């Protein structure tokens, strides 16, 4: 067929050549109404209508369309200008190598794109000041491993719910737990596997793990009757056995719900390295006010998880839902950061600020960072004590290594050396650190103030406690954190009236100020 005899059906229908069948149908119907002989007496319209029918018949038949498209490409292809709105932009061959050398910026703030890891460090000062002891030094580090080569589909989850059913859970705690899970469990898919372990002084597997059994788990939870004392080891051991046998591609996630303490907590803490080695992620949820903060903190942070204080059901549900979404897309299941410090430096505090919060106990030189979704990074705030006086031409060297464990068993490892010169007092006199460092340390200081207030109370110094809380309320207000400032003022009133804080008040102060460490956008949904 020659080019001039060729009828462009796509042009006739006003469609691009990659139009779908629906598009073709729709276009035909619209145009048919215009040109149908019964509706349009114009003889040209009749001819047009005939062609429209022919176009539709050809293009809706797979074989005929394939043949037609071949002809079309041959005759029309070179002159085709697709409607830019619909078309893919032309792929422009662009050389891989940069056209000019990258601009250098001061080493302190330039992100280093070495070996595909994204690592960025910001410091409170260009370096520690000579010969001053004691001295504080802050560093804010961001780490992100190489992105996965292809966008991977969401992963099915393997959730092991470990739920306290001891007598104390009766009433409000169990009610809150049920409400949270009744909001979250229905969002699980038929591929997600859920197991339910209930414990008092024994552990019982109420619902064995099976894909798509989230609705069953919810039913069983609704019928649960609290009874008995509390031991943590049996359910955790049982959970670990279940998680060991999970399908390898699922992320092992243990959700631990309790409202109290158990005498075997020290045994659990000793056993934690086992869970760590198996990369089991533990998120701990404390219901009510009697649970042991230090213990749940250790339980969660040793695996890179997070502790959530639940005192109102709606907060817990949002946080859990958000976490579910993140974990499905996680491309790193577990990661560990370890470091070597010179003798002149001691780590005073180490806090994970992103993607979620973790307060690590001091005294170790390895921490678990937790899973990562594409687009996220780990952000760590370090607070160091300089404990030996440093001479001027000295340099402090630190080495840290992250090991990121991927679902398929590979480990990506990245070592980064930090180095800072020792500087003079003059060098730092008018130095202002980067905004992010100031912001992070400020949030840490808020958390510290309420810690000091509570400590003062334990030492029976309510006036001192008031002083700290007052300062905290003042700074929160100035920073625009109105809600938390209000919470602090409420507790301040309680303190003034009763010279003590309620147990709930203490938890609200602790976890409320912790929450403020999260970046603002994430904080809206988190507890």
């Amino acid at each position, binding site marked *: 067929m020659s080019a001039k005899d060729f009828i462009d059906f796509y042009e006739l229908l006003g469609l691009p050549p990659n139009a779908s069948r629906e598009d073709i149908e729709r276009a035909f119907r619209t145009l048919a109404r215009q040109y149908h002989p019964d509706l349009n007496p114009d003889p040209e319209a009749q001819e047009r209508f005939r062609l429209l029918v022919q176009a539709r018949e050809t293009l809706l038949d797979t074989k005929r369309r394939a043949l037609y498209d071949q002809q079309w490409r041959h005759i029309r292809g070179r002159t085709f200008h697709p409607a830019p709105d619909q078309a893919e*932009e032309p792929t422009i061959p662009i050389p891989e190598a940069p056209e000019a050398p990258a601009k250098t910026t001061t080493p302190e703030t330039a992100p280093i794109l070495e070996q595909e890891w994204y690592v960025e460090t910001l410091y409170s000062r260009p370096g520690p000041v000579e010969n*001053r002891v004691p001295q504080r030094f802050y560093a804010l580090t961001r780490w992100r491993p190489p992105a996965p080569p292809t966008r991977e589909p969401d992963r099915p989850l393997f959730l092991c719910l470990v739920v306290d059913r001891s007598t104390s859970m009766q009433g409000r705690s169990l009610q809150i737990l049920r409400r949270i899970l009744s909001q979250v469990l229905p969002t699980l898919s038929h591929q997600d596997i859920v197991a339910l372990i209930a414990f008092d002084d024994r552990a019982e597997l109420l619902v064995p793990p099976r894909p798509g059994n989230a609705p069953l788990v919810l039913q069983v939870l609704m019928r649960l009757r609290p009874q008995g004392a509390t031991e943590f080891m049996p359910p955790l051991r049982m959970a670990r056995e279940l998680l060991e046998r999970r399908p390898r591609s699922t992320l092992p996630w243990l959700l631990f719900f309790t409202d109290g303490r158990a005498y075997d907590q020290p045994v659990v803490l000793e056993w934690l390295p086992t869970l760590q080695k198996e990369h089991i992620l533990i998120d701990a949820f404390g219901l009510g006010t009697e649970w042991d903060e230090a213990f749940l903190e250790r339980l969660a942070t040793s695996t890179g998880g997070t502790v959530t204080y639940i005192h109102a059901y709606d907060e817990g549900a949002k946080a859990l839902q958000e976490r579910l979404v993140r974990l499905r897309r996680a491309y790193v299941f577990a990661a560990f950061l370890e470091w070597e410090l010179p003798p002149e430096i001691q780590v005073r505090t180490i806090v994970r600020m992103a993607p979620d919060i973790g307060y690590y106990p001091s005294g170790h030189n390895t921490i678990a960072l937790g899973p990562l979704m594409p687009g996220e990074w780990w952000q760590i705030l370090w607070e160091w004590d300089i404990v030996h006086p440093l001479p001027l031409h000295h340099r402090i060297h630190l080495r840290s290594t992250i090991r990121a464990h991927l679902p398929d068993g590979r480990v990506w490892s990245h070592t980064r050396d930090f180095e800072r010169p020792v500087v003079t007092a003059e060098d730092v006199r008018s130095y202002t650190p980067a905004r992010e460092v100031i912001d992070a340390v400020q949030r840490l200081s808020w958390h510290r103030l309420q810690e000091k207030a509570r400590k003062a109370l334990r030492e029976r110094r309510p006036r001192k406690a008031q002083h700290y809380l007052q300062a905290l309320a003042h700074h929160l207000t100035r920073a625009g954190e109105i809600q938390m400032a209000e919470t602090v003022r409420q507790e301040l009133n309680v303190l003034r009236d009763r010279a003590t804080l309620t147990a709930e008040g203490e938890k609200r102060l602790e976890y409320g100020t912790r929450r403020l460490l999260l970046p603002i956008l994430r904080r809206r949904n988190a507890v």
Partner: protein
Amino acid sequence: MSVCPHCQAPVVEGLLFCEECGGPLVPVVEDMYTTSFTGQLSVLASRATLTLEGPGRWLLGRGRGTASLQGATFIDLSPYGAYMEGVSRRHALLEISPEGRAYLTDLDSSNGTWVDHIRLQPHRPFPLPATARIRLGRMVLQWQHLSP
């Protein structure tokens, strides 16, 4: 300094906030939590200029109505020849954070995104310096931080 200027408590060298009263020991911008970050994006070839006030998110792409991203204002570059310059429908995301930092993220575009000759990895927010030359495919934009 060895005492806090607000409460006179002794302070350790290197502290950024007093541990007794929480007062800042380094200059803290008063409006750190108010949003007054302004940046300017110019299309070099056409001299068109957009002023962006943060915090916020802007999706750079082409084709009205075919591209969107939740929470982001769409900037349609097709009037500037985006299609022939190889700009994808959802090419890159420019974000200004509440803390006052600007980031550019390539959204896995067909022809790539460059900042000052560094090619961005897809989905990795890249902090923008105060002045930067951004390239989306073949289209060159100039980024300039105006204030604060």
